[in-house]
């Protein structure tokens, strides 16, 4: 491997690169899905390769290959330089990197139970028992459960002398029940939709979800939703559960604080941001209660690592402090433009892709509203929505609409009627400005979000969001004609 690294960096240097780095990555993943009492899918995948990124006359070039051989490193380094020279032909401002010091270091995700060492039988037993428990509830059309495991072993080396070896281990799982009639499809997922909960860590995290324990109530709610009335329309006080708060943070705070979006470099795909740099330190993003941090060091977070893919150490930095915009997610290229150093959020999904600014764990600090039940008891008229099923937000991250799996009308501090297809819509700063209660640490969960998309070619991102249930006043709910 050292030979490959040396050849890549030497070749880039010889051909005129002012800076070069190489990432050698092997990613393994395993997945098991049980559906309607049968093992529907058992998969194992390995992908390995390397990518070389070069800066020539202030312009980027990148190429990548799966052939882990020194000769190929020469070829790919030369190709990256040639691509960078093409970039130079349409350049306005040369790229300048911050002065992050190169380090030699290693990082490994701490875990107790290696998720790849847990037997297929043990994993299957959990999923089959959960499936059987969901199957005992009459009226369920589709029962599904899954567990996943991931291991990424990567080496980063740069022409300035950085050398970092990391091993990131992930584990996750969840269950989902679907009930269907002529006009409705209703789903309930536990502990979250889109595959459940995923963490960096070992299989102990999956066992702690108690999927079997929660299977029956999950299935019962899916069936109950079929016959529930449609969510009412109008302005109401809204309480959302921690899974939905997590996604709300993701879309309306995580993405718009990505400094590359702010600078317009994602404009052609995902869009830009309303959080322009002239607002740093002054914009009222939310109410006084709203404090949001980017914490790449949070234990177990899906956005937790030792170093980003530019060799910058993982950090915990505030984005929103007492409701005011105070920070951004940055990279070595973008941070100097606001007079800062990279806070270490530049990551690539595969060896064949370049690092982009990706969320780490974007966490809403817990508040003092007690438990979810306390918060409901404190609400006279309102609606409580739980577990996301739909999301959409405009290109500047202002106008959003979310749909959840289940809603309950709150009357005089009590959770009453169940309603189906609940949705809410709003404008980001107005919505966070209406936040008047956030539940406490006991209700706070660090959720993993394994399906963030960004960039062209599109890259997946694994990120985390710490969140507790929260209340927002006078929100428009029940959007559209039903």
């Amino acid at each position: 491997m050292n030979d490959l690294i040396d050849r890549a960096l030497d070749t880039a240097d010889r051909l005129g690169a002012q800076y070069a780095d190489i990432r050698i990555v092997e990613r393994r993943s395993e997945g098991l899905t049980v559906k309607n009492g049968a093992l529907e899918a058992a998969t194992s995948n390995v992908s390995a390769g390397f990518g070389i990124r070069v800066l020539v006359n202030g312009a980027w070039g990148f190429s990548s290959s799966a052939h882990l051989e020194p000769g190929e490193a020469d070829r790919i380094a030369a190709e990256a330089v040639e691509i960078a020279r093409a970039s130079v032909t349409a350049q306005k401002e040369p790229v300048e990197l911050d002065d992050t010091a190169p380090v030699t270091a290693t990082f490994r995700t701490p875990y107790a139970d290696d998720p790849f060492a847990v037997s297929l039988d043990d994993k299957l037993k959990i999923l089959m028992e959960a499936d059987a428990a969901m199957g005992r509830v009459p009226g369920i059309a589709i029962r599904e459960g899954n567990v996943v495991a991931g291991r990424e072993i990567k080496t980063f080396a740069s022409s300035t002398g950085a050398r970092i070896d990391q091993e990131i281990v992930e584990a996750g799982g969840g269950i989902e029940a679907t009930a269907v009639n002529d006009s409705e499809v209703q789903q309930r997922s536990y502990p979250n939709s889109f595959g459940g909960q995923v963490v960096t860590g070992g299989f102990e995290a999956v066992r702690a979800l108690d999927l079997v324990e929660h299977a029956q109530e999950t299935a019962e709610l899916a069936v109950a939703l079929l016959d529930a009335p449609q969510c009412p329309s109008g302005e109401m006080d809204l309480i959302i559960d921690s899974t939905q708060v997590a996604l709300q943070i993701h879309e309306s705070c995580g993405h718009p604080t990505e400094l590359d979006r702010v600078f317009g470099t994602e404009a052609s795909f995902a869009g830009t941001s309303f959080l322009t740099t002239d607002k740093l330190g002054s914009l009222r993003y939310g109410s006084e209660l709203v404090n949001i941090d980017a914490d790449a060091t949070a234990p177990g977070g899906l956005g937790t690592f030792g170093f980003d893919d530019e060799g910058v150490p993982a950090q915990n930095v505030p984005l929103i402090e007492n409701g005011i915009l105070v920070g951004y997610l940055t990279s070595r290229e973008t941070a100097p433009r606001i007079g800062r150093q990279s806070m270490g959020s530049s990551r690539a999904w595969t060896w064949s892709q370049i690092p982009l600014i990706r969320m780490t764990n974007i966490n809403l600090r817990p508040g003092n509203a007690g438990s979810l039940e306390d918060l409901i008891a404190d609400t006279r008229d309102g609606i409580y929505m739980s577990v996301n099923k739909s999301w959409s937000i405009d290109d500047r991250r202002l106008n959003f609409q979310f749909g959840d799996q289940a809603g309950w009308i709150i009357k005089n501090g009590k959770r009453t009627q169940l309603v189906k297809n609940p949705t809410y819509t709003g404008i980001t700063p107005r919505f966070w400005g209406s936040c008047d209660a956030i539940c406490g640490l006991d209700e706070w969960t660090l959720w993993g979000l394994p399906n963030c998309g960004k960039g062209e070619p599109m890259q997946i991102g694994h990120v985390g969001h710490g969140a507790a249930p929260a209340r927002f006043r006078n929100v428009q709910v029940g959007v559209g004609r039903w």
Partner: protein
Amino acid sequence: MVAGDRVDEILDLALAASTADATEALYTAEDSALTRFANNQIHQNVREHDAALQVRVIDQQRIGVAGTNRLDDAGIREVVERATAIAQRSEPNPRAAVMPEPDGRGHDPDLGFVAATADASADRRAEGARAVIAAGEDKGLQTSGSFSTGVGTVAVANSHGVRARHRATRAKLLTVMMDGYGAGAASGYAHAGATDLAEIDAEAIGRDAATKGDTMRGAGPLDPGEYEVILEEHAVAGLLEYLAYIGFSGLAHEEGRSFMDLGQRLMSEKVSIWDDGADPTGIPSTIDFEGLARQRVDLIDDGIAHAVVHDAATGSRAGTGSTGHALPAPSLYGPMPFNVFMAPGDTARTDLITGVKRGVWVTRFHYVNVVHPKKAILTGMTKDGTFLIEDGQITRPLMNFRFTQSIPEAFSDVRALGASTMLLPGEFLGTYRVPAAHLGSFNFTGVTSGEGGE
């Protein structure tokens, strides 16, 4: 690129290494490059060479799937061993343990392959980027976009005798041009895809987007509500991509999750939608990931829900057999159409607007998502060119709307369809050749009017 005979060798080695009842070897390769620009300059410029082998084994109705991108002989043996080990520890699943037999249908292995596109250089993409940027600068707009070229190969062999291969090239150029990034800033868009790079006219794309961006300056709000709409081809394709994702799959239909109530009227009789991977006016993919030739499937025929697409497993359960629309095993999402066409109408595209008394012109949609799959209710934003139409003419640019709308309901009132079609790569999946449409009603449920929405 891996030479063709090595691809055959890889498939043969995988089949020979397996002792299971049935074995499938799926080879996929990607050799692609993308030049990305923003703020009037190239800021990302990448290339990728990868190839992978996925092996599916079925042994006593137990299934194992494993993949690798290590394609030397040892890597091939290792992936077969891994798939076999999974199957041996698995539980039997007769419902899913289906691997197709050869069905005698042929396919063109090179339909849509253009050598000059496969070999396109970084300089060629940079030249296109410069042309688009120049058009944007001419109108004082911040130009962003991407220009990609590449070749994809799929080859499949299974122990029942299925053996097929297809490769195709694609080139795609899109641009978004903005008058800064503030509230209500003007923006324009253009986008084209083709198998042959030579068909991509970068200057024309730049001109289209720049003209649109320029006319969007000074956009003002309009109250949300139900309006007649002209949907440009980009907007129609954006909706169709989501219909394909949630409803045209045999699995979604089998499980009662789809809006496709077969035999029932779903949309206006002006609407016909089909999938055809062998139509050279699309970006062809002539075989699926189980190695069967993709058949033409008429999905919506004169407004009637006619058929859904199948892979071997859903096709055997439905009794129709596979239509050649499998995704790679284990395919939890079921089969999917990738080459979607919508029939044009008989109104010249430029005349579509003349029938609109008061309505909204939509260039495209942004961040569409599913609110309710069975009613096919989608939400999303308008973007990059939204205008008020009065008495058959565009009268002023509009700030962007959010819509929340059942799509079959919207396409039940089709006033006219454009006589021409455009080929557009989907944002996530597949390619779409569609006309522009004039619809009687579309429900805009919100508007983004200013900074912070005030």
